């Protein structure tokens, strides 16, 4: 997409543009920087002063060509070491949509970074080098996308120019990846053959692959639906803050403010407040100063209720006919994100929506080996970047949904009460979608896993 006055005019129009959050994942040499660079560059998101700064810095280092990685490596240590050590967020826009890109490092040891990026992503782009095909790292990325339940996955088969733009090469990789990812429960996979370096099918359709009839990467990003049918979702409003002006004009106003975590709420609807279990009806909904009849996720609203019942931060408002059962026992898949380990018996804090409670790690049932998706039973502890199954007992009952039903009310953090460190990212309930104990053919090991695995 070229930068024309017309594009600028379209960009200036905020109507009908939506926001898509996506994450990129790829190994070190898969060309992720090139792909990100091209998306940013061709959507006018790299401006001339940034390019000049990169050129000057490259020159200073004795590099002849501008090193586009300098655009994305924001930290001194990253530039010094020439690697990306942390997630960075980037922004670009087309006339149709605004994009927030979580640019996640590809190193094996940074699983936590991909988890971080994927936690808020509507879509993940998994990059594969056409010459190498599906490798261990690709499986890891697919597994993380499946674990985090990223709704859309794009398989970008890169460097097609180096395999003669051969349809068979692409088809074989796409088939292998789709079989693998579908088994993990990835709901939608779109395969796109690209050359990030040459520019094939990234922004412009390729002139070299007339056998491919699908969208370019950017076209797909622009058109993929960002939200799903909410009518079937369990409605959830975690109470963040109670608004009570107590002024002469508004002596009795009592509003329960929060961001709707899932589903929709309507005026007149009977609701239950958890954990107390008291019931009432929605008397009104304030959408940031505007009174509305219906509101839905992820709108930030203030609910007014018919009865004056005791509600505070951390409570959960749900439709009376659809209340989750509060429990003090949480079973979850977790990704350990801290340098200090997580051990059995450890006392932690558990943050779920707007509620933080004391908790204890009762059991670490298993640790997942992402390479072949095998389980290692009772590892005793989890260290940084480990993914495992844990059982946690909380001091107070929590109304968690299954992460499979709601990314927002099924997720939680474990926090070290001593220093506040975020230890672990948790996803409640069963994992990997439908889970009927899938037996994964571990091709790498050549042996099928008899027990299957319950991640």
């Amino acid at each position: 997409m070229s930068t024309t006055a017309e594009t600028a005019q379209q960009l200036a129009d905020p109507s009908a543009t939506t926001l898509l959050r996506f994450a990129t994942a790829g190994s070190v040499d898969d060309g992720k920087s090139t792909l990100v660079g091209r998306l940013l560059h061709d959507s006018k998101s790299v401006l001339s002063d940034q390019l000049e700064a990169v050129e000057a810095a490259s020159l200073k280092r004795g590099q002849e060509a501008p090193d586009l990685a300098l655009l994305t490596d924001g930290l001194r240590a990253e530039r010094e070491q020439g690697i990306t050590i942390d997630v960075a967020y980037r922004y670009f826009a087309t006339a149709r949509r605004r994009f927030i890109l979580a640019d996640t490092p590809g190193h094996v040891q940074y699983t936590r970074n991909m988890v971080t990026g994927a936690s808020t992503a509507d879509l993940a782009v998994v990059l594969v080098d056409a010459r190498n095909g599906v490798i261990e790292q690709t499986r890891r990325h697919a597994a993380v996308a499946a674990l985090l339940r990223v709704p859309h996955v794009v398989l970008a088969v890169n460097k097609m120019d180096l395999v003669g733009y051969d349809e068979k090469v692409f088809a074989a990789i796409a088939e292998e990846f789709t079989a693998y990812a579908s088994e993990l429960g990835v709901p939608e996979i779109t395969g796109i053959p690209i050359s990030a370096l040459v520019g094939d099918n990234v922004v412009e359709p390729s002139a070299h692959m007339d056998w491919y009839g699908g969208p370019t990467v950017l076209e797909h990003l622009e058109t993929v639906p960002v939200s799903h049918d909410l009518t079937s979702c369990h409605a959830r409003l975690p109470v963040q803050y109670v608004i009570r002006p107590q002024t002469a004009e508004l002596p009795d106003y009592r509003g329960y403010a929060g961001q709707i975590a899932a589903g929709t709420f309507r005026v007149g609807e009977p609701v239950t407040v958890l954990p107390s279990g008291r019931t009432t009806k929605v008397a009104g909904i304030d959408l940031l100063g505007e009174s509305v009849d219906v509101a839905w996720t992820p709108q930030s609203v203030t609910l007014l209720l018919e009865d004056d019942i005791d509600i505070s931060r951390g409570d959960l408002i749900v439709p009376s006919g659809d209340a989750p059962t509060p429990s003090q026992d949480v079973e979850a898949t977790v990704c350990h994100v801290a340098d200090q380990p997580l051990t059995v018996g450890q006392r932690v804090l558990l943050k779920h929506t707007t509620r933080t409670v004391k908790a204890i790690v009762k059991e670490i049932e298993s640790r997942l080996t992402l390479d072949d998706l095998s389980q290692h039973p009772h590892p005793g502890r989890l260290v940084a970047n480990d993914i495992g199954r844990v059982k946690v007992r909380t001091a107070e009952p929590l109304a968690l949904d299954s992460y499979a039903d709601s990314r927002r009310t099924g997720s939680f953090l474990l926090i070290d009460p001593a220093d506040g460190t975020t230890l672990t990212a948790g996803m409640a309930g069963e994992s990997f979608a439908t889970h009927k104990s899938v037996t994964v053919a571990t091709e790498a090991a050549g042996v099928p896993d008899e027990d299957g695995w319950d991640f």
Partner: protein
Amino acid sequence: MTSAATVTEGVDSPYALSHLDALESEAVHIFREVAGEFERPVILFSGGKDSILMLHLALKAFAPAPVPFCLLHVDTGHNFPEVLAYRDRVVAEHGLRLHVASVQEYIDAGKLRERPDGVRNPLQTVPLTEAIQEHRFDAVFGGGRRDEEKARAKERVFSLRDEFSQWDPRRQRPELWQLYNGRHAPGEHVRVFPLSNWTELDVWQYIAREDIALPGIYFAHEREVFKRSGMWLTAGEWGGPKEGESVETRLVRYRTVGDMSCTGAVDSDATTLDAVITEIAASRLTERGATRADDKLSEAAMEDRKREGYF
């Protein structure tokens, strides 16, 4: 799947929010999280568009109740008079409480020394961090956006600072879902950036949509300026022009509002919000690249200042 990829209908559900609604909802969520979790939050308010936007969002987040935060302005002593007037008007209009940390007072007391280049932005760090300690603020809202600068692209929404207000990018907490971790030890505080995911264009489009008043210097006007390091600086008592720099009257506007010593004006005839938005959408320069001298000091200028406690 075959080589013809899954065809996706490009139709969003009727429940899809516009990008501005999504950003607004997220920012409001962040304000309410801080109000629920912290004892003594404060909003950094410079009278610039980002802090004006923050205040507008905070007003919406807690309406019809007042904003439960006070404001803190780090006054460099070289602020635009129009901006100070705007600040005081807003504070009075919404019945807010304003704290001012003054760079000039620090210089007069000998606690800070004027830099040879006269640039005062970096001098803000000491009065800022001391004001945070003095008032025991535990959450400090800043208007920083990740699209501004590459070190800022690495910043979390909740960014823990130690008792010296320092930022250590290698020790940041991973930030997952919308679960912000605000735990901190006594003496530490958290910098909170509700506009993290907004771009300059988003800010302007939202200001237009909500019809938010801004100081006049954001719109094209005639001003006496002189050229220094390729930027148009406002002539004035703060220290410009020097010998060899000549003043001329030009039609300009500001894209950012900061200290007069390092904030440049851009040539512009955009006198309305619509004209400003069209101009920015077509601009080939970033906001900071066009108008901030202090970011040009070195490749890691922003990162280094942030490590020391800058916002």
